């Protein structure tokens, strides 16, 4: 508004007071997660000086890499205004498939074959949500269960193991390191950089924001909405396939349920980063921050000597907190009787 600058030049005392008070509220609502995270880091470092040691930081990033790669893809889906709850069971599927094909086709063919199969699932979801306009929550919740069944059918319910664990180079994606940096971290970083550019700098990325922000207006602007949503699910499934590859490579054997529950952690990381579940906002950089926050919190709880299972509860609390702050940031207040 044009009046804004005029009033800012000769502010009245009373106005200054309300200004700063409301600004504090807004900053709290907007940056609340980062502030809470900073407090958390300081508190945990005081409680356990090992927490911020180089070794521990490296191990946190490394153990977050698989989740992180999946979160990169889900960021695309969430910004386009949809959900993807199938990524956990899809990751189990990729892991089992690539381990099985490793012994039948050999690693060189197993990897592209697994990518093709996983991305076919992504294409199916993209078709249902993008072109048929079905609700993404229903579609991907159903796919969560359907893909789980598919995985069990494929494996016959058995754990999958590579026969000759010593004689394969397949472990490089999960266990190797290059230039002194573990390969999982490299994959996560490179993929984050690549997808960050795609989302933030290309026309395709711009269209995703438009479709998620206001799909009708995007259509009225000549954007092919269905194709855009379809592409987001394809990217998400490619990320899941990458994560499955990393998982399989790390352990060279796997249960059918290796990715179970990851869909919620992934979603938590994306929301923690500040992407809105309504679509249209969020960035790859913010998602990486969200992944790290989640990783550090889970690691910190373990260092405190809490049971591993506590993290499931904590993850839920974090999701609720993040969603609350997201809404609060929009209305500029932590609580309001009207939406």
């Amino acid at each position, binding site marked *: 508004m044009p009046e804004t600058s005029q009033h800012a030049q000769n502010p009245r005392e009373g106005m200054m007071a309300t200004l700063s008070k409301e600004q504090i509220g807004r900053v709290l609502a907007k940056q609340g997660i980062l502030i809470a995270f900073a407090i958390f880091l300081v508190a945990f470092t005081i409680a356990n000086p090992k927490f911020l040691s180089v070794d521990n930081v490296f191990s946190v990033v490394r153990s977050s890499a698989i989740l992180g790669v999946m979160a990169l893809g889900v960021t695309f889906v969430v910004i386009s205004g949809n959900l993807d709850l199938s990524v956990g069971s899809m990751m189990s599927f990729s892991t089992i498939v690539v381990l099985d094909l490793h012994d039948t086709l050999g690693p060189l063919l197993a990897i592209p074959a697994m990518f093709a199969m996983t991305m076919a699932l992504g294409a199916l979801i993209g078709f249902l949500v993008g072109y048929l306009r079905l609700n993404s929550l229903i579609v991907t919740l159903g796919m969560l269960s359907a893909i789980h069944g598919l995985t069990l059918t494929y494996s016959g319910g058995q754990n999958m193991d590579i026969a000759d664990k010593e004689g394969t180079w397949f472990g490089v994606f999960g266990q190797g390191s290059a230039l002194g940096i573990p390969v999982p971290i490299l994959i996560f970083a490179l993929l984050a950089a690549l997808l960050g550019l795609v989302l933030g700098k290309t026309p395709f990325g711009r269209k995703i924001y438009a479709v998620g922000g206001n799909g009708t207006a995007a259509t*009225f602007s000549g954007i092919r909405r269905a194709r855009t949503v379809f592409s987001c699910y394809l990217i998400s499934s490619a990320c899941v396939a990458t994560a499955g590859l990393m998982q399989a490579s790390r352990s060279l054997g796997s249960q059918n349920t290796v990715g179970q529950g990851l869909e919620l952690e992934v979603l938590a990381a994306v929301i923690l980063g500040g992407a809105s579940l309504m679509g249209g906002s969020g960035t790859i950089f913010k998602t990486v921050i969200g992944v790290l926050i989640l990783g550090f919190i889970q690691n910190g709880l373990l260092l405190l000597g809490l049971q591993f299972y506590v993290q499931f509860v904590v993850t839920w609390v974090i999701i609720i907190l993040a969603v609350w702050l997201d809404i609060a940031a929009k209305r500029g207040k932590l609580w309001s009787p009207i939406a």
Partner: protein
Amino acid sequence: MSDPVLRLENIVKTFPGVRALDGVSFSVMPGEVHALMGENGAGKSTLMKVLGGIHQPDSGHIYMGNHKAVMAGPLEAKAKGIVFIHQELSLAEELSVAENIYLGELPRKSFGRVDWPRLAANANAILKKLNVGFDAKARVGDLSIANQQMVEIARALTVDAKAVIFDEPTASLTDAEKVVLFDVIADLQREGVGIIYISHRMEEIFKITDRITVLRDGQYQGTVETANTNEEAVTQMMIGRKLDLSRNAAHHELGDVALEVRGLSCGKLFHDVSFEVRRGEVLGFYGLVGAGRTEIAETLFGLRDPSAGQILLDGREVRITSPVEAINMGISLVPEDRKGQGLVLGMNCRDNMTLPQVDDLKAGPFVAEGAEIAIFDQYRDRLDIRTPGWRQQVGNLSGGNQQKIVIGKWLSMHPNVLIVDEPTRGIDVGSKSEIHKLLRELAAQGYAVIVISSEMPEVLHVSDRIAAMYSGRIMRSFTAEEVTEDSLIQAISGLGGEQVA
């Protein structure tokens, strides 16, 4: 004269950086219809929120009768007898009329059970008073918008209303429905209720109100007796200058036919529609909401499949099956619903403006942001868009500036045919006249422009020719010279006038 039912004294309300209300005072007498006017952003909504207890004033007082009243919240305002009839209805569509009327206060029997017979009887008593043609058991979602509004009014009558505030009540009503509404308002007047009537529509204001209070930029501009003033004077109070609404036909040479439509039909929406638009002229489509005007525009833009007929661009027949194709063929549509269809409100100004051409603005694989900013700057200057910069979220702009962003977005595509649906809906008087001027300039520059509007002064002001639509058909076409208000109204009401292609 008796005491006012409601008196506002020196109300001040500031938001960070903005003085939304700066010393507003006026009073409403019993049985008076008091118009509250002002451009968008003048402070009307803020004032109503103060009255309704949603905002607390920084200073100033509200008096009801002779007592100072503090509205701590919406419930308290209602308890004190202040009732709002909102422009956007707030009804539960799946519930019955009676349940909606008494929502939150359903009559009870023992154990908290709802007393259905009493509920129906009470509701029907109120409906009878309003003289409406539906039953208390009807499902609200099945009623017309006008009848839904009657339900809101019925709800207002369940409390002992001292002051009733109507916010743009006629926005979606037909003329016949307006008559019913005005009757209800007259009844309220006779009962001594004070009425605040907010509207942009001058005819109504001069028909039913007793006094007019005008706000501009949060400042009280004065209160005048309706009988002692005229539209021009009130407009001047609202915008601080005079508004030009003269006829405005082209004085330049017209070019070739840019778009021709022959016998176009689309199911039940419109039928056998034929017209042509030349470069350099504005073709106005006038008619009631639902007459099929918007549907024609959407068909030309590839959003609907025609069931019959031809579309010719520059004399060549084309098939348009998607907005992408329409855009590639040089058709641009500024849609009627600015916020729902025109803009991504969470995006910044620049990104909104370049959205249709983002695929073409590339530097390598990336969006050429420099070129985007250049386009934004060009149209910001040309259309006088007031925004702190391209980074500003479009949702934070005023309605007029938002509409200019949408127009800039489509002008920057250099269209052969520019379709503008409701160019000035919901924007203030000042921006309105700027947009009218712009539409005339575009025609003078050789654009073929189609303007769809529900406002007769607007159509008369900007069009070279006018197609009057009724129930999916073009009833008559007029040139700017021959059209009269009467003949136009007859044509869009389906009265008289044979169909002319």
